[in-house]
């Protein structure tokens, strides 16, 4: 991430943080989009072709979980708010009030229409959220709504009366949401697809297949579904009934489903595609040299998990020694090459801290030194394995993929060269087998990655609470658990952030996991494509995108 884009990102987050502060009535929507030139600079044909990678599993926002699905969802729908390059913008909600205790949000909705002309009402939100939480809907991402009062209990079947769930349409245009506990990031969650409104009549008429065809997919966003050729492409056209249709410049968006990296790169270089992401790793140096590669922020971290229930990884000194003996700078420069940053902590850059404009990572800083061989050697000797002698054999587990393999080989080599550890072997397993091994604790050291769900450190930190399902290394620390619980129980951003910084320090002092690098988004987009928003959570947003004359 260049300095410029970092500053930009901080700006975005500052804007998000400001809206989070609860100064309701923040209707910035009247403000017109900046930077869109008059029709003079625009190409006559406003069609954008983006390779969305693969067939979406579903287009029902309540049921989707992946990035290809998200891309379509952000094009078809508009939530209460929308994350944009300028920060969190009011969308269907034109303003909102937050109660003193941070538990009650009252959203005031603007006059917006569904693609079939019906008005978008607060009831549509209430219906959609309760539907996502309904156990019968089988929403895998229902837990994105657990912040809402009784959301979890209803989803788990502990209560059966949906009226006890803390979301209520007070009238057509007012939505009241009650939270389980203060969660200042709740506002940014309302821009997430699980929380999109749904057109009740259509969904009730076709409960299982309303999102499968253009005839029944009623939506409220910048585009509508025009064609869905399974495994080939999806075509979207501009939604004439969209409340902010004036801001939408594209007439058509074509989302292709080309999986093979070298094929979509060729298509992009040929001009058959306007925009792609994740070009093949072997082409990165060339693309960089030709100035064709853009690096965008991505809220994710690549790391190794230690199985803290197995010797010798139950010894913090061994874990630290192994973590310190890695040269992360070399890994990101020589292996991954997509502009990643070495991770000397766990929570990635790009998440706002308590102070407006501040970044959680920058305030937290680094928790250890990269490639600190001397300290690593000393720690290993202290643990009783001087020069790696006497250390039981170590296996690095990763899911079968070329880049994981190369990184694992580099780590193996660094441990050997820097610490004298000879008996490190690599094991690769097919994805599902690997997930199973991780779950069952059948590993020594396992590769892992995590992409945030929302803009708050909690999306990373609560995974390492003793009881969390994702905590595959079974690391457990009472003080850590307490700090996370404390941060979850208050709406005071300062206190929350302080608790989370402390928690992260414990996680890193204990080296429960070994961070390697922070992800980045490698994007190739032709110069004539303007104003695509590359959301650091993954899916790009084409609401404001347009094609310049070329």
């Amino acid at each position, binding site marked *: 991430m260049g300095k410029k884009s970092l500053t930009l990102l901080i700006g975005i987050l500052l804007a998000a943080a400001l809206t989070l502060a609860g100064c309701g009535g923040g209707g910035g929507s009247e403000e017109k989009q900046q930077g869109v030139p008059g029709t003079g600079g625009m190409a006559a044909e406003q069609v954008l072709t983006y390779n969305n990678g693969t067939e979406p599993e579903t287009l029902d926002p309540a049921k989707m979980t992946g990035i290809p699905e998200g891309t379509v969802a952000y094009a078809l729908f508009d939530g209460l708010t929308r994350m944009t390059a300028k920060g969190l913008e009011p969308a269907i909600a034109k303003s909102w009030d937050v109660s003193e205790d941070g538990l009650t949000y009252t959203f005031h909705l603007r006059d917006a229409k569904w693609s079939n002309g019906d008005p978008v009402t607060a009831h549509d939100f209430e219906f959609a959220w309760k539907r996502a939480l309904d156990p019968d809907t089988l929403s895998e991402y229902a*837990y994105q709504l657990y912040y809402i009062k009784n959301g979890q209990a209803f989803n*788990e079947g502990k209560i059966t009366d949906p009226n006890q769930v803390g979301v209520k349409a007070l009238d057509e245009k007012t939505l009241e949401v009650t939270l389980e506990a203060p969660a200042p990031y709740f506002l940014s969650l309302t821009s997430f697809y699980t929380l999109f409104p749904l057109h009740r009549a259509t969904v009730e008429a076709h409960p299982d297949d309303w999102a499968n065809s253009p005839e029944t997919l009623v939506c409220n966003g910048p585009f509508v579904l025009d064609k869905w050729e399974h495994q080939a*492409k999806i075509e979207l056209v501009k939604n004439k009934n969209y409340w902010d249709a004036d801001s939408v410049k594209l007439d058509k968006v074509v989302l292709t489903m080309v999986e093979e990296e*070298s094929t979509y790169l*060729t298509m992009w270089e040929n001009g058959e595609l306007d925009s792609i992401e994740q070009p093949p790793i072997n082409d990165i140096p060339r693309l960089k040299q030709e100035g064709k590669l853009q690096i965008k922020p991505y809220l994710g971290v690549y790391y190794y998990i230690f199985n803290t229930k197995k010797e010798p990884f139950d010894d913090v000194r061994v874990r630290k020694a192994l973590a310190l003996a890695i040269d992360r700078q070399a890994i990101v420069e020589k292996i991954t090459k997509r502009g990643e940053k070495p991770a000397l902590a766990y929570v990635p850059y790009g998440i706002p801290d308590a102070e407006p404009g501040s970044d959680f990572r920058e305030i937290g800083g680094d928790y250890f030194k990269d490639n600190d061989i001397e300290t690593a050697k000393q720690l290993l000797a202290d643990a009783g394995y001087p020069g790696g002698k006497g250390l039981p054999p170590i296996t690095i587990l990763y899911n079968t993929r070329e880049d994981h393999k190369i990184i694992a080989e580099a780590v193996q080599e660094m441990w050997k060269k820097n610490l004298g550890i000879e008996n490190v072997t690599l094991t690769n397993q097919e994805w599902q087998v690997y997930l199973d091994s991780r779950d069952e604790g059948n590993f020594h050291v396992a590769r892992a990655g995590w992409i945030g769900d929302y803009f708050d450190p909690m999306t990373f930190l609560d995974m390492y609470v003793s009881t969390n399902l994702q905590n595959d290394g079974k690391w457990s620390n009472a003080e850590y658990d307490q700090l996370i619980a404390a941060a979850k129980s208050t709406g005071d951003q300062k206190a929350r952030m302080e608790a989370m910084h402390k928690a992260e320090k414990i996680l890193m002092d204990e080296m429960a996991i070994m961070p390697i690098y922070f992800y980045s988004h490698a994007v190739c987009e032709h110069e004539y494509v303007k104003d695509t928003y590359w959301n650091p959570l993954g899916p790009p947003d084409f609401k404001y995108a347009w094609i310049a004359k070329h």
Partner: protein
Amino acid sequence: MLQYTIRRLLAILVTLLVIATLTFVLMHCIPGGPFASEKELPPPILQNINARYHLDWPLWKQYFDYLAHLARWDLGPSFKYESMTVNDIINNGFPVSATLGGIALGIAVIFGITAGIIASMNQYKWQDNLVMFLATIGFSVPSFILASLFIFVFSYKLGWLPAALWGSPQQVIMPALALSALPTAFIARMVRSTMLEVLAQDYIRTAWAKGLSGGLVVYRHALKNALLPVFSYLGPLTAQILTGSFVVERIFAIPGMGRHFVTSIANRDYTTIMGVTIFYSIILLLANFLVDIAYAYLDPRIKVAGGKE
């Protein structure tokens, strides 16, 4: 003949049942499940999902339930793609794969036989050497390399053809060629060797001695016998090529069904694994059956057991 046909069809049904059973058992033996992911689902949500798809039933019950649906050709919903049933996946994908495969098969048969004849008529001359050289390349270069090479040359360098996707005639050329390379080479080699064998037979020498023209000798006397082995190879080849290729479909982003043979297993999409496996088996068994029936007519030496003399 009728008795034979009935017996063969019954055998096909039994074979299908065995295949379905083995696939069902094997697929439940491998670790993981359709709803496992790196972001683990809270147990209550997972329980709901398993209950909906009957994954919480004992395996034997799931098995018989599946067979009952299978008997009605109801292959169930795809676990991975909510928007499609397995029947949809096959109904959407098979016509695409079959179109592409049919064209590739046509190329393979026409060019393979022609090249084989030319080579055999010119044994050890340059024509023979050229054909055998090309056949060796077609034989040994994997289709993913050919496919990438085609894209590089014809799309990237020359810009003549679109690199991928499906819908226009131009988009058929490269995948069809990539798909046909191996069978073309195989057929060419096979035709060459059987032709050489046949051409050395006494009756061919007699034909030459009678002063028949080369074309007539080849067409009327040699070719019919030389093509019999090719014909038996066509059964499995047809089944394989019509149901699509994972590699070619992936590289050219073709919405066929070939990719599902691999991806459904990676996704543990149980219903799709079963559906595409059984569908492929049906095509394969039928193709072999038809070849066997046709053989009885083509080759007078073969008599159907139990058939009338």
